[in-house]
């Protein structure tokens, strides 16, 4: 295929780039104690939470933005960001879907996430977070009947403060890192899940994050607790309007799995990636960590990262419980000028803990894609095992793939395996498909999907199809 044809094909369309025109309550840009107090007051938080936020803020002031990742971007002015923006509403906010602003419902319809329960996928409950607040959560009653708590974080603050006080910050402490500390000070909303002992959550839980307002950041916080012997599968999706300015998204996700519990956490991240010249797009600096606190507990992270101008995230597992299992399955694509530095940390503490890492990086256009992963086996982790596989696929001549694996093994009985490969979509593979009558775009999608297959098969079925379609869009025309 000739170069002009290729160039013409390398165009991408972002299908979620619209803005909802809605009256918003937005605090002026800037970050100081008064902003933190204001957010806490708006959320009617108990004293312990305000104190925690303020400790985070003062700690944050001692930190410097980290620059060890393989990323390049203009400096972020943290005082130019507004830390709270919410659609204006009358009174105490919506009691049910009937009270939710129709413009918001229309927004989620347009995003393909209808909030009316009869229109929803029958097996999926959704919490919809719009800028700094949750606007609706579906299927709450059905979940409550099973004893499952699934609600906006702000609501959990009011109704389950004891659970929050017990678990908040126990996996990602407010001192953890620059972005997590910032989040701890100013986080606004997010989802809260508690699954009681022995309960298998009867449906998929899902949160859909939407950034709408300009010049704001989104700082959500999610906490999922799976009590002994329980199971939950959770999925998050993310989109934002197309804008020439960069917007910051700095989330924290904490997972806690107790004895014999299992949490499956899937992400389909499609924040606005910026345009073909690399203007605009979301800066996605996210801290996600799960702790297998109990024996035989199991946490799996599956992520499909197609959006954002910059992705900096390392969903990790602390394998404290004996025989616990941590898994990380990732597909990260970078096209145009997108940059991703992503991977995981597997910290083996308990005996006979096992971890699996499968990372698939796809780079096209001028995209830069780095895998960064740590496997740490502590002296107590007798019999620990890790298997890591990271593969990179390059499309075109201007992109890059990088692999930074770190290994720290302090127990001689551990078995650690690492496999890595870098390849291009070969002319021969492409021609083979063409010769069988498959068109070029379809052939590339087929080859890329094949490359990602071992990750896609980990996604809940309803979302595997969506993820595959999303991948096709994000690599539209990137035949190389």
């Amino acid at each position, binding site marked *: 295929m000739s170069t002009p044809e290729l160039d013409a094909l390398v165009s991408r369309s972002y299908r979620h780039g619209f803005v909802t025109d809605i009256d918003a309550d937005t605090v002026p840009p800037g970050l100081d104690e008064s902003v933190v107090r204001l957010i806490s007051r708006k959320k009617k938080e108990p004293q312990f939470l305000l104190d925690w936020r303020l400790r985070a803020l003062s700690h944050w002031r001692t930190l410097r933005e980290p620059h060890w990742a393989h990323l390049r971007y203009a400096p972020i002015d943290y005082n130019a960001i507004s830390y709270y923006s919410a659609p204006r509403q009358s009174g105490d906010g919506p009691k049910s879907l009937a009270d939710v602003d129709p413009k918001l419902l229309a927004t989620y319809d347009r995003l393909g996430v209808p909030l009316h329960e009869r229109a929803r996928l029958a097996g999926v409950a959704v919490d919809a977070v719009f800028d700094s607040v949750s606007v609706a959560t579906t299927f709450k009653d059905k979940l409550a009947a099973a004893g499952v708590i699934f609600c906006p974080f702000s609501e959990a603050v009011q109704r389950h403060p004891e659970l929050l006080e017990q678990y908040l910050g126990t996996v990602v402490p407010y001192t953890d890192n620059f972005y997590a500390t910032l989040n701890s000070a100013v986080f606004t909303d997010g989802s809260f899940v508690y699954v009681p002992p022995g309960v298998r959550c009867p449906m998929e839980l899902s949160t859909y994050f939407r950034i709408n307002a300009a010049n704001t950041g989104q700082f959500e916080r999610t906490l999922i607790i799976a009590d002994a012997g329980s199971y939950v599968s959770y999925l998050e999706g993310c989109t934002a309007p197309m804008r020439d300015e960069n917007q910051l998204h700095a989330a924290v996700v904490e997972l806690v799995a107790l004895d014999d519990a299992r949490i499956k956490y899937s992400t389909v991240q499609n924040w606005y990636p910026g345009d073909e010249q690399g203007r605009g797009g979301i800066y996605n600096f996210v801290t996600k960590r799960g702790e297998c606190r109990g024996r035989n507990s199991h946490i799996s992270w599956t992520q499909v990262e197609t959006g954002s101008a910059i992705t900096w995230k390392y969903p990790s597992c602390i394998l404290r419980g004996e025989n616990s299992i941590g898994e990380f399955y990732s597909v990260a694509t970078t096209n145009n000028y997108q940059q991703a530095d992503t991977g995981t940390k597997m910290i083996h503490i308990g005996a006979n803990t096992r971890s699996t890492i499968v990372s698939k990086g796809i780079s096209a256009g001028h995209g830069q894609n780095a895998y960064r992963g740590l496997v740490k086996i502590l002296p107590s982790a007798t019999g620990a095992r890790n298997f890591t596989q990271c593969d990179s696929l390059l499309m075109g001549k201007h992109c890059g793939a990088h692999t930074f694996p770190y290994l720290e093994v302090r127990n001689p009985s551990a078995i650690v395996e690492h496999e890595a490969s870098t390849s291009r979509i*070969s002319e021969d593979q492409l*021609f*083979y*498909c063409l*010769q*069988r009558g*498959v*068109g070029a775009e*379809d052939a590339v999608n087929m080859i890329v999907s094949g490359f990602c297959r071992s990750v896609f098969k980990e996604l809940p079925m309803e979302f595997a199809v969506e993820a595959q379609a999303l991948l096709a869009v994000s690599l539209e025309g990137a035949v190389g």
Partner: protein
Amino acid sequence: MSDAAAQPMLEVRDLQVRVGGQIVLKGVSLAVRAGEVHAIMGPNGSGKSTLAYVLAGKPGYEIVSGSVSFEGRDLLALAPEERARAGLFLGFQYPVEIPGVNNAYLLKTALNAARRERRLPELDAFEFLALVRSKTQLMHIDESFLGRGVNEGFSGGEKKRNEILQMLVLEPKLSLLDETDSGLDIDALKVVANGVNSLRSPERCIVLVTHYQRLLDHVVPDFVHVLARGRIVRSGDRTLALELEKRGYDWITEQAAA
């Protein structure tokens, strides 16, 4: 022979092709009618595979002069996938591995692309599976092959049988088989030959590109051509292949050079 049958299905006229600055085909002409099986033989480097690739539309080959028509259409004006959908199939000498892409999925996509072209309804998964099953039996291919990645971890012989399986499912009008016999033991050779013979019919034609004549014991050609140094230097019936088997290629290429 009727007038329609007299019109070749594939007609190559004085084809000159350059690859990396070198003229590799120096004026090849070939006419293949429906129902015929032609064998193109020749020493290594004579341009046999180049001819197959050029007909299938592989990038990287520059057409210097000449023309190719396929059922009256200008074949060289078509993109590779259009040629495939029009009924041209290339059985590769070295079929490439495409990890993670399901063998059956690729084949179903290919078949339905061809069926759309022919304005036939697409096959659903059940109809497709029924069709493929009958062909896998003929090719002595275990059904588990269908669920594996395309050629992923296949042995050399398995890859070749998989090529013929694809051909049987797609039912092309023109099959170009590039060294399909290489790397096969005698049992596999018979299976492959059976497969090829099952597709022989008055509506189709087959061009076998081969170095050795042993495949031709099982798939008996109507015509044999010798390609040497970029030219067809001799054409004949199957006895030419037997003569080549006995005497090698040197005498014929020397005659051509003289």
